[in-house]
């Protein structure tokens, strides 16, 4: 498995993601968004950062980058795709995943550790966890509030497409534990098929025991 980590102008978690993937035994390479998706790419990460300076809306410009047509085609054929942070915003703007990530309730950029409750442990991204397990990952975003119509959110929940919700250390989903005002505390969702997923917290920043912990390794192991 070689995972292509797409670099948009303004991506800044791309190299960290390559290193994090390699730490869980997954080969990875950087791919510039103006280049073609390599034929050998068996997985794709849309990494974090500030593509196109977050102009218009975070992720809006990168979602229309030519390589995204290839990403969409690969996803349709079953290639696993994970969008992290800005990559999650790109994934939603590109309609790979439902909903939108918009301005935090605080109207501020927030950089902090959060707790997440695993809502569905039967996706490639969460099989390493138990359902209901609480993990700790960092967030670093100004536009991370998950927004979607009530009807569509009901449908997502009925179809078990919520990956993670923000919670407290004991796993309770409370308004106080919701860092950005996300609807129903949603921190990550899957696409129509669960091999495509996006999440605002950064699993790649929690894969090395020496720098904080390994709670995020399980997500990246979804490519293994």
């Amino acid at each position, binding site marked *: 498995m070689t995972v292509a980590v797409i670099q948009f102008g303004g991506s800044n978690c791309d190299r960290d993601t390559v290193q994090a993937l390699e730490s869980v035994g997954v080969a990875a390479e950087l791919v510039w968004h103006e280049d073609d998706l390599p034929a050998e790419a068996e997985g794709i990460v849309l990494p974090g950062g500030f593509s196109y300076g977050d102009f*218009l809306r975070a992720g809006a410009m990168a979602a229309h980058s030519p390589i995204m047509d290839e990403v969409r085609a690969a996803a349709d054929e079953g290639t696993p795709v994970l969008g992290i942070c800005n990559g999650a915003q790109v994934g939603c*703007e590109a309609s790979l995943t439902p*909903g*939108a990530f918009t*301005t935090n309730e*605080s*109207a501020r950029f927030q950089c902090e550790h959060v707790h997440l409750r695993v809502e569905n442990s039967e996706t490639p991204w969460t099989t390493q966890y138990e359902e209901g397990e609480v993990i700790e990952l960092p967030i670093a975003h100004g536009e991370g*509030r998950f*927004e979607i*119509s009530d009807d569509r959110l009901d449908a997502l929940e009925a179809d078990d497409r919520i990956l993670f919700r923000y919670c407290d250390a004991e796993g309770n989903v409370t308004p106080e534990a919701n860092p950005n005002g996300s609807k129903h505390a949603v921190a990550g969702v899957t696409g129509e098929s669960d091999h495509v997923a996006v999440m605002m917290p950064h699993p790649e920043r929690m894969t090395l025991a020496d720098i904080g912990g390994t709670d995020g390794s399980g997500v990246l192991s979804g490519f293994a």
Partner: protein
Amino acid sequence: MTPYTATVEVRLKHGVLDPEAETTGRALERLGFELEDLRAADLFEVDLDAESADAAAERAGEMAERLLANPTIHDYEVAIEDQ
């Protein structure tokens, strides 16, 4: 072909929280203004040549659908004027 200016106004759907507008409203109150509520919107003015005002409106509407607005959270309106 006629030169038109398409004005595309993009605003959050009713009921979607707008933290920036709330912050702006609070800042106005700190300046001593009285207000009940404040809503914000983005306005795009697009100069374009088209066969008719309807054709200009259709093209500007596609621009909104595909990029200027995010249909998940936004509503938009298009107005066309001769340049």
